[in-house]
């Protein structure tokens, strides 16, 4: 079986890779691309540990074929911090102890970021329903929800200040 050559953009960088026709995007990220921040908890779209965005749309990379990335813009956890500067969500997760084992954390952060891009001022309920596709077995979600709400508030404040 011939491998497929894919040209895409990941975290703002142009990338190329070869994949099998049945490789998932998660296989490609974790394999040839070496981006192991996205995790595999189920490979069936049920845990969200593999969350990435494709053209700003939140997807489970385990449900996407690696070949489908051709020509799209992907973002993964590895592209979330701006160099040494953490994204406010990452900072709040640390400050609020919103991770225990950390295996769900990449997916949670990517999913939360996608939420705040769409809705900078979510209610607790909106956060809970948006993150319902991301399983966390350690935290009971309490601190995760708080961290997302706090980060959202801080980001709104920053936007307001920047506007003034």
């Amino acid at each position, binding site marked *: 079986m011939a491998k497929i050559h894919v040209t895409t953009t990941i975290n703002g960088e142009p990338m190329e890779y070869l994949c099998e026709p049945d490789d998932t995007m998660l296989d490609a990220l974790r394999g040839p691309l070496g981006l*192991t921040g996205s995790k*595999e908890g189920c490979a069936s779209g049920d*845990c969200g540990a593999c969350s990435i965005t494709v053209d700003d749309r939140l997807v489970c990379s385990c449900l996407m074929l690696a070949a489908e990335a051709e020509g799209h813009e992907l973002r993964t956890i590895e592209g979330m*911090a701006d160099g040494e500067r*953490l994204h406010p969500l990452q900072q709040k997760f640390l400050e609020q102890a919103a991770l225990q084992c*950390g295996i769900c954390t990449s997916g949670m952060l990517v999913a939360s970021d996608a939420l705040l891009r769409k809705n900078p001022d979510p209610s607790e309920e909106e956060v809970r329903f948006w993150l319902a596709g991301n399983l966390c077995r350690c*935290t009971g979600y*309490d601190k995760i*929800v708080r961290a997302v709400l706090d980060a959202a508030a801080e980001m709104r404040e920053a936007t307001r200040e920047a506007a003034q």
Partner: protein
Amino acid sequence: MNLVTNNKWIGQRTIRPDGMDKVTGRAQFAADTTMPGMIWGKVLRSPHPHARIRGIDTSKAEKLAGVKAVVTSRDIVDFTIEKGAVMLGIQDMRWMCRNVMARDKALFPGHPVAAVAATTEAIAAEACKLIEVDYEVLPWSIEIEDAILPDAPILHEFNRWEGKPSNIMSRIEHKKGDLTEGFASADIVIERTFTTRPVHQGYIEPHACLISVAPDGKTTIWSSSQGQFMVRAMTSMLTGIPQSDIRAIPAEIGGGFGGKTIVYLEPLATMLAKKSGRPVKMVMTREEVMRATGPTSGSRSTVKIGVKKDGTITAAHGTFYLQAGAFPGSPIRGAAGCSFTPYDIPNLLSEGFDVCSNRSKVAAYRAPGAPIGAYAVECVMDEVAGALKMDPLDFRLKNAAKQGTKAAHGPTFPRIGYIETVEAAKSSPHYAAPLGEADKTSGKVRGRGVASGFWFNAGGESSAQVNITEDGNVVVTTGHPDIGGSRAGIANICAELLGIDYRRVSVIIGDTQTIGFSNLTGGSRVLFASSMVVTQSAEKVIQTLRERAAKIWNIDPEAVKWEQGAAHPVSPNAGQFEPLTLKELAEKAPAMGGPIGAGVQLNTQGADGGFGTHICDVEIDTELGIARVIRYTAVQDVGRAIHPGYVEGQLQGGVAQGIGWALNEEYIYTREGKVDNPGFLDYRMPVCSDLPMLDCIMVEVPNPKHPQGVKGVGEVPLVPVMAAVANAIHNALGLRFYSLPMSPPKVSAALDAGVRQAAE
């Protein structure tokens, strides 16, 4: 006890040492590494619940292009049954060797029968299909009721119970007083039977490992587990490679909850690597995790409690049957030993029965056995309080265990904090708040329930090394994998003792060849045990620092004190010297006697048990039968919260798991005896939108036998949950559920039956 007051770092919500790696995707979990020349291993598993293996032919698989090695039970060291138990911790290697690879019989669907290593995962999977196994399919049983029948299919023919072949493998009992007399003196006696289903620990990270065996036998294991030393010891015993040749490196672990306290893949990958001469990586699928790794037991419990009219418990009797799965070893000790422990009961019999059946071997799950027993006991406690027309917390207070109470499992309690948890629950804002009105027009009703729980907590072996770097900072190495933030606790303690900023303390988990033996991350032992050895190591380091300063100042070491990260003369009488900081002393180290560091290894003692009391509010949609937890408060005696954020995290995580166990989670089996819901879609763990915020009240009754007052916290929070939810549902509906989970179909059916009854 030298309990430090006015702490700068103990009790602070500092940033955890491994946090940055985990929020940026850098942290390396078990499946995140590769090695040059690496190939892939896959396991062939039995499709049958029970079958004799008459033969295995691997020749076709071996001939497939790309296949590099095949292993079967012939490659795994046999611990013969006749020679008797060979224990490693609580695990008998006779069962472990048969669990990692079936020998004469396959005992559950998913039981490994062979493993293959090949250049790609696809080839390895293909090769598994080419292995021919000659099975003689046998009758099987899964449920306890079936497995204890006189004519049940027997898993282990050697086993006798009351003189006959049986699946009842053992019994444990705790006894106190005279049961007959106790019940005779009671005014009210209530006896009920409860069942629970097997539930999985549900860690998001599947089991995985990467192993290389060099031609000289030197073995490197990269895997995630709750104990790199357990991995080393079990792999050594099952492969025959000496422990000194096995370096087990603890990867970051993506959840364990007890389920990663035994090995599944490591011995197989080691033998595949040895045979092929190539590093072998193995990663379980979620389905394999669900089918072949340990859920906890399903159970059948009968609990009888007798009380006087004034609410004094006179007697109690509990009988707990727990499914062990394919091999003996269900957590009957936790069920029989913990369930009545919050109460001072003069006449008590608590019995546990270990029952094998054709299901994967149980693995520990957060306070193993205790939540199962507590569910039954705490529900009966609620019924008794109802019959007495007493507030359920007052009823518990009236019978509460306290200092001097003799627990049925042995100890006479030192100062314990159970009463404090009940009182804190009683005076909590939650208990004081009214339930609030549900939307009655849409058929919703609300209820509130409470429950308590106990877990033993453990100490045990722990090792630490505290080193001062050449630039005057600190590296602490311990030997217990950190699942939930224990490194953050260690950093706080070390910074406190050395009087420096916590960010100057780096905390790492050593591998088996770089740090001394440390027991499993389990039994809620980690912060208790490791902070003891870290404290003693840090104290030795401080002693060295004082001696160095004394030498420089040419005064007696006793005249030097260590404060705020520097050596000072104890008083002006000792001499007038500028303080010498850690940094300065580190710089001078080469000339003043060499590197500064100390290690301590101990079998830590004095872990006090832990108590918790929970309050749960539910709202039930009576049309759909859906119960939702709308408010929850967990109160626990945590001894001393070294890092409150991660202590709360333990409480909240345990509560969430308990809510899942109470309302949705269960193993469902097909008529063929296979798990029918081996994925997250059908095995329904709580998601974010299922839960409310989970409130925590940390009661701090310091452990007098610990330098910082620490008690284990991780396991207690799961113990009371199912009963708290069940009691809340009873309060809402006036209906009591005697089996878990209280899932929508069950609640609907009960409501329909209730309505029918009322109509008849």
